[in-house]
């Protein structure tokens, strides 16, 4: 068959949407992998309901996967899809509002039955009633064409129908000239145990590809050239995977065995799943009876000398509060990974939010300060995990790492680091007595390192270092129980001072201000990095000046942060939280600490910010300056 013409594009945003049972996440994943291996820059946004399979054909049952890919460096999964693949009327209805006029819509006409239309409240068929006029609609009988293509296979009709996502993937792969070997190899492995199903899927995929070449509906196909990223070897990676790898790497770089205590919870469970595979690396994973036991076991392992981690989401962090407080009092290293989701309470488990910052800061009884770090992008989860491990082991303190649902499931290209280039995290365990008491060499568990204020990490099994620690207030140096007023005051101050001392080990705030003339600083943390960055680019492209800085360290802040903030006439802090009436959770901390009139831009919609929207906000702030 003659290949059609190829048109060049610099970027495309595609959204796959269908029923929970339609395999949209898989389709999106595969398309992403193809795109990654082609060398585009990319960013993804899976978006699915909390139900495993919500009722077929309903709005709550729609599962979607969005992918933004480009020939240049991009920062977000995109605001508005250029192409929507809608597997049924519900998928069309749920996503239409996000499309710009002129967007392409590929619909599976087979599902546009009277019954399905009624289910989602379409009074008439939008494919016929002219309501989609503004769009470029490609009506395709995806299901029946798939079934037709598979009619010679010895599989049930249901099984044949299920392959329609591969037909769609084949079509899209053709449309954007994606490499296909990876997907074919993937299908062969995935369905290795049922060769009929495997062949059916391969055939569906290939039929979809051929359909693209043949049909008149698509007159050209598109190409998006590989992106000129920094040289190196790349892979596509999601946040939860990057975080898991970061922990494995931290274990190896520290020489400590990795121990994960966890209780499944969306969207953190994949960290447990991933780490449970890595027994080759000596990783121990413990699925506990609840979150309290999970963090308890991790603390026990930390006491025993493991690089101890517990992973959870908001409700689980609440449950772990008391034990994290014990960790603060015991001064043991512990990494607490909190993959934030929309709250309060059960909230919207599969949707993202950044509303646990203040919980992480203050959600424990008494004054129990812990360092807090947050990754800015899926791949950055790797580095942030290493940083959390560094702080925890150096300062002997629980560290909270705040990821979120978007980072967890979203993905982007990652330049694979050289292991030897990763930070050296080796720790020094106590091996000797460190004091003399009544003329006898003795080990005192609360004698501190003068720089870090860390106390010794003395492992059970070290002869001569037998000692007892506990959650009751303890005397300085000896660690014995003490109710002495002055000692308590001193210990509370010391634990705070130790956390504050982390600031001396982190770099200054990095501000991006290409023109050097910006009067407005946009400051963020966590997963808003992409949208804020993209928005700033747009604002600058429109000829305005704006500076951007993004915090990895939320507690303590970089030492120079106050000074940086004061350099600007206005500080804008976009956050996916409301901040309890204080204008945002980070805003609140900044205002309290630096008395800077930081202004929040706040949304809790369970979805990342749209770059466009942020650009508009930034523009307004810039223009409103006196």
């Amino acid at each position: 068959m003659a290949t059609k013409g190829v048109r060049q594009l610099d970027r495309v945003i595609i959204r796959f949407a269908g029923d929970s049972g339609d395999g949209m996440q898989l389709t999106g994943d595969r398309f992403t992998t193809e795109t990654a291996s082609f060398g585009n820059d990319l960013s993804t946004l899976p978006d699915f309901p909390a139900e495993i399979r919500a009722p077929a054909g309903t709005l709550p049952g729609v599962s979607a996967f969005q992918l933004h890919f480009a020939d240049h460096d991009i920062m977000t999964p995109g605001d508005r899809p250029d192409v929507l693949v809608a597997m049924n009327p519900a998928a069309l209805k749920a996503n239409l509002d996000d499309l710009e006029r002129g967007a392409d819509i590929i619909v599976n006409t087979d599902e546009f039955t009277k019954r399905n239309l009624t289910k989602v409240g379409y009074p008439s068929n939008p494919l016929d009633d002219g309501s989609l006029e503004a769009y470029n609609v490609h009506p395709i009988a995806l299901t029946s064409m798939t079934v037709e293509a598979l009619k010679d296979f010895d599989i049930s009709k249901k099984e044949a129908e299920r392959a329609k996502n591969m037909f769609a993937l084949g079509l899209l792969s053709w449309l954007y000239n994606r490499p296909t070997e990876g997907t074919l190899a993937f299908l062969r492995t995935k369905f290795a145990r049922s060769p009929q199903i495997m062949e059916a899927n391969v055939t569906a995929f290939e039929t979809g590809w051929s359909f693209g070449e043949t049909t008149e509906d698509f007159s050209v196909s598109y190409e998006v050239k590989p992106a000129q990223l920094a040289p190196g070897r790349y892979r596509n990676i999601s946040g939860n995977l990057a975080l898991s790898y970061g922990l494995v790497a931290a274990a190896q770089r520290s020489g400590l065995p990795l121990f994960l205590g966890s209780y499944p919870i969306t969207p953190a469970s994949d960290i447990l799943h991933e780490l449970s595979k890595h027994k080759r690396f000596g990783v121990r994973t413990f699925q506990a009876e609840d979150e309290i036991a999970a963090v308890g076991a991790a603390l026990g392992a930390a006491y025993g000398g493991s690089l101890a981690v517990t992973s959870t989401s908001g409700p689980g962090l609440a449950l772990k509060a008391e034990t994290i407080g014990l960790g603060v009092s015991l001064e043991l290293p512990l990494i607490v990974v909190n993959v934030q989701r929309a709250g309060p309470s059960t909230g919207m488990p599969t949707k993202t939010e950044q509303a646990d910052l203040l919980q992480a800061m203050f959600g424990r009884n008494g004054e129990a300060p812990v360092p807090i770090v947050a990754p800015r992008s899926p791949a950055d989860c790797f580095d942030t995990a290493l940083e959390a491990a560094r702080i925890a082991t150096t300062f002997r303190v629980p560290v909270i790492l705040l990821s979120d649902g978007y980072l967890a499931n979203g993905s982007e290209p990652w330049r694979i680091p050289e292991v030897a280039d990763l930070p050296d995290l080796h720790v020094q365990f106590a091996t000797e007595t460190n004091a003399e008491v009544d003329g006898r060499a003795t080990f005192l568990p609360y004698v501190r390192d003068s720089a870090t204020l860390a106390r010794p990490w003395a492992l059970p099994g070290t002869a001569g270092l037998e000692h007892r620690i506990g959650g009751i207030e303890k005397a300085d140096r000896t660690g014995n129980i003490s109710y002495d007023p002055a000692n308590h005051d001193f210990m509370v101050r010391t634990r705070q001072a130790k956390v504050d001392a982390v600031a001396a080990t982190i770099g200054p705030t990095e501000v991006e201000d290409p023109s050097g003339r910006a009067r407005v600083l946009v400051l963020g943390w966590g997963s808003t990095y992409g949208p804020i960055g993209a928005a700033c680019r747009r604002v600058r492209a429109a000829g305005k000046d704006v500076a951007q800085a993004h915090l990895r360290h939320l507690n303590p802040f970089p030492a120079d942060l106050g000074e940086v903030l004061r350099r600007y006439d206005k500080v804008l802090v976009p956050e996916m939280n409301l901040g309890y009436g204080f204008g945002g959770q980070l805003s609140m901390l900044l205002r309290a600490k630096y008395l800077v009139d930081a202004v929040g831009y706040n949304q809790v919609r369970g979805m990342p910010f749209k770059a466009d929207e942020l650009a508009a906000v930034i523009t307004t702030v810039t223009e409103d300056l006196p």
Partner: protein
Amino acid sequence: MTQNFPSLSLVPKAREAQSAKDFKTDQEVRWCPGCGDYAVLAAVQSFMPELGLARENIVFVSGIGCSSRFPYYMDTFGMHSIHGRAPAIATGLAASRQDLSVWVVTGDGDALSIGGNHLIHALRRNVNLKILLFNNRIYGLTKGQYSPTSELGKITKSTPLGSLDSPFNPVSLALGAEASFVARSIDSDRKHLTAVLRAAAAHRGTALVEIYQNCNIFNDNAFEPLKDPATRDEVTIRLEHGQPITWGAGAEHGVVRSPDSSLKVVETADVPASDLVVHDAHAMDPSHAFDLSRLAETSLARTPIGVFRDVDRPVYDDLMREQIDRATGTQGGPAGEDELTGLLAGSDTWTVR
């Protein structure tokens, strides 16, 4: 003096002979004068040398309560944690350190009220832990509220008209939770307690030892029938594996099995000796041990003590270690830097030049 405990074969041995004194710390013991905890502490300190373990490889982990102060008085490694969570913390420690002998000290409130879930899950998993549950049937440290082992109708600070809930029988609960080792002893009976500790130490997996402990301030004489020379023989059933279950000064009481499977108390003189139930601590089916647990009356009119059950079944930390050994062993030791590089790269990569 030191014995051989195959269950502790992975724990380094002491380099020198030890005595009880070696296990005492310089900390003043802060229990009320007369508290039963003192006796248990003394028993444990004198028993420890028998294990012949390097002191630094022993860890005591406790929760919160009077009894949970225990670790401060043991010159081993120790952690006084938070209320109810000691089994969870100890699980993480035991599952990551095969070379330690890990002991949990807990109270009836700590273990059975706030910590109930961790306890039953530790028992189910069969992690290598020895759990000493000091049961004084009261909350001591918080000054005398009723506990999940207090008798129904108990008048305490929080139940001035009497408590409304029937107590747990900790042995029954443990057996229902698949415990592989369950025993009961009494603070004041040093010899019996030591024997039970010995059996617990010899067990691989989780061992739960319930120790009746007198709180002379808030629940004094709670276990008096078992201690008073005038009554104790009449009410204490000393379980011994392989022996017929009899008690009384002249072993005049015994049990036979009644048709509904519960145990019936009889006078030994009235039944043929062969009808008497013989204790089998190693029966794989926990039914026998459960039946025995039901012989106990909350009123202490009858109380079995000793080892109810002691069977081998898969041990969580052993299995975990096996999985890791298998994974690392196949290719000679745990994965190194190269393999990490491979992991990070995965299978789908591309290169930008």
